[in-house]
């Protein structure tokens, strides 16, 4: 009979797999090292990884040594095991169906390790008689522990003593780490138990399981006497005094806060008043200093030149895309440019990408048209509001060219110039990307001061001349009025603008001096 190494079930001698659990029987499990858990092939006495002895010294084959397997035999054994593992899936299926695989013809020879064990048992007088039937679950006689096993162990120990194995010497530093025995800490009873009673370590004392280690309570480490530094002690006393100090009267703190808030409010109102005075006083005085001394920038001059070069009767598409929030800047620009256009005799088509811009632009357009005797429908035309998305500017040009929105334009070349007044950079970008680029129509722009940094690269593009001219904010309108000799609200506002800028610069400087001065004073105080 062949006993399954996995479940212990008895199988027929020639069985290849266990009839109970399906474990391959041709490749018995090797010994697992008790020290490093390495699975070792059968027939060897020491672990192939860590070198630990796999069987107790008492049964060491000193008298009847087990011959180590030859390399070829070990390889054959391992290869056999791997082959069985490789076909493991198929074999498991067959076993699951209850097919009597183990009942196949016994063509295989016993493995070498089994022969060795059988020879060892025969020499020990444990050879079973032929035909003797072993009951299911019982160990064969040659696998049972011999009755003189304990004597063999004691002999092995005596032999070890005779060999002069000196006890391990514990170094002094390790001895110093040995915890002192304390009363009241009970060691678990298992820790004092004698050696192993089963398994390969049977009879070996000094082994300790994991459970007793976990059960040992931690020893209390006595704390050393703390001697705080004097400075730390003083700080602790100060903290204690602060905590125990009775609260101050709330009136004092409230008054101080009120004073601080009043001071902050005073500074804020002083700033407001100074800025308001900077704006109001030049207006009330009617100052014209800037009107007489203002220099005109190149971009406004370029815009003036672009309109100045238009032939009489040229069609100019004017788009006024702003809302009341920036009307203070944009209306003076539109007024100055429309004056110039109508002075040159240009025909104007007015449109707006914002609903408010349509209405605001009409106020300027009607006023200037009255000055020059323009009649709506002849000298100028109003298209009104067009939705301010990508399709808006494109639809204006396509409507003019194909849908007959205006009698003034029949071809794209009839549009001599596009004048864009953009309160926000998005509107300028829409006209540049949807009309100026695709159709190549010349374009100038007046933008809010906020939009100037976004518009400037288009004007500075000397390779493509995307914007022939650019005016910025109220200053740009004033420059244009200066160029055209038409004094208007922009020029009249320049003194207030200049004084306000100077005041803002001074306030910024004063704020920085106060801030850094305060930091310096605080640092010196500390």
């Amino acid at each position, binding site marked *: 009979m062949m006993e399954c190494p996995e479940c212990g079930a008895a199988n027929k001698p020639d069985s290849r797999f266990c009839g109970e659990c399906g474990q391959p029987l041709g490749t018995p499990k090797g010994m697992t090292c008790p020290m490093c858990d390495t699975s070792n092939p059968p027939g060897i006495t020491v672990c192939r990884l860590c070198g630990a002895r796999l069987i107790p010294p008492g049964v060491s084959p000193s008298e009847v040594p087990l011959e180590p397997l030859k390399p070829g035999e070990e390889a054959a054994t391992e290869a056999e095991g791997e082959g069985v593992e490789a076909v493991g899936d198929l074999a498991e299926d067959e076993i699951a169906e209850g097919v009597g695989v183990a009942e196949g013809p016994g063509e295989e020879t016993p493995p070498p390790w089994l022969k060795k064990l059988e020879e060892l048992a025969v020499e020990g007088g444990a050879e079973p008689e032929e035909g003797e039937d072993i009951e299911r679950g019982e160990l064969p006689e040659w696998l049972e522990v011999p009755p003189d096993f304990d004597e063999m162990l004691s002999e092995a120990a005596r032999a070890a003593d005779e060999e002069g194995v000196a006890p391990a010497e514990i170094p002094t530093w390790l001895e110093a780490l040995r915890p002192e025995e304390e009363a009241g800490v009970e060691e678990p009873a298992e820790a004092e138990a004698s050696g192993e009673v089963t398994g390969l370590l049977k009879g070996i004392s000094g082994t300790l399981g994991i459970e007793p280690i976990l059960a040992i309570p931690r020893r209390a480490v006595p704390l050393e006497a703390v001697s705080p530094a004097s400075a730390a002690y003083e700080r602790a006393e100060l903290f204690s005094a602060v905590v125990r100090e009775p609260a101050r009267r709330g009136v004092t703190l409230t008054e101080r806060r009120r004073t601080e808030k009043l001071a902050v409010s005073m500074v804020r109102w002083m700033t407001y008043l100074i800025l308001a005075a900077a704006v*109001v006083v030049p207006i009330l005085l009617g100052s014209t200093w800037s009107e007489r001394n203002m220099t005109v920038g190149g971009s406004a001059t370029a815009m003036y030149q672009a309109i100045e070069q238009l032939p009489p009767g040229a069609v100019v598409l004017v788009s006024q895309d702003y809302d009341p929030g920036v009307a203070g800047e944009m209306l003076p620009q539109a007024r100055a440019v429309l004056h110039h256009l109508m002075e040159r005799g240009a025909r104007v088509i007015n449109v707006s990408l914002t609903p408010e811009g349509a209405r605001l632009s009409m106020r300027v357009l009607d006023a200037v048209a009255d000055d020059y005797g323009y009649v709506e429908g002849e000298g100028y035309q109003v298209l009104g*509001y067009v939705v301010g998305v990508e399709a808006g500017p494109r639809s204006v040009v396509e409507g003019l060219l194909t849908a007959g929105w205006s009698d003034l334009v029949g071809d794209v070349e009839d549009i001599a110039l596009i004048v864009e007044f953009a309160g926000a950079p998005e509107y300028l970008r829409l006209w540049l990307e949807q009309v100026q680029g695709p159709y190549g129509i010349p374009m100038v722009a007046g933008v809010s001061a906020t939009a*100037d940094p976004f518009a400037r690269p288009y004007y500075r593009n000397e390779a493509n001349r995307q914007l022939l001219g650019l005016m910025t904010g109220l*200053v740009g309108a004033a420059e244009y009025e200066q160029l055209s000799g038409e004094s208007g609200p922009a020029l009249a506002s320049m003194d207030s603008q200049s004084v306000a800028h100077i005041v803002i610069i001074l306030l910024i400087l004063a704020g920085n001096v106060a801030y850094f001065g305060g930091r310096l004073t605080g640092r010196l105080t500390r």
Partner: protein
Amino acid sequence: MSEVFAVWIAAILTLMVYSYLLADNPLYRLAQHLFVGSSVGYAVVVVVHHVLRPRLIGPLLDDATANWPYFLPLLLGLLLLMKARGSTAWVGNSSVAFLFGVGAALAIGGALVGSFLPQIQASWVSVSPETAGGAGAAVNNILLTVGTIGTLSYFYFTMGVRKGPGTGFLRFGSTIGRWVLLITLGAIYGNRVMAYVSLLIERVYFLLGDWMGLVGQ
């Protein structure tokens, strides 16, 4: 008379808005709500009078047979109204898809033709005084080139944030780009302050001139 009334209303609303300098108060909130409400109402009126009536309803009423293509935007617009209710919102998906499709196509094409390619071409400048048109123009072009490369390096997040071989130049360019951006933001802030001062001047002119009559426009 109506103009005087309008000036008074505008002046009072202006003062109500400036009352925010004191603190957030009901007068400021009232002016804010009036502005928002009147803007929306005005936008609706403008859309009806400037868009729907002259460019859609008018052509259809004049000659519906000849102007039959106008029914298509009318239909899409009506479908868009179905978005008002959640249960019928899916009906307007085709209108939204049309709007987004046309908008995206125009935006991409326009950006390529109107901004992207021309600005790339504009950044290809000469740094030689002979060909740039003088020493000042050459210095300007050098600053333009360095600023452009530095700003692009700053926004090149894949490399340069870590120290390593081959990233030194990129990190140096990134530092330059950061300073260029700071200067640009400072310029934008300065322009914004200038714009707000201009708006304050315009309102002061209105209050002192149109309302009080102290100065002439």
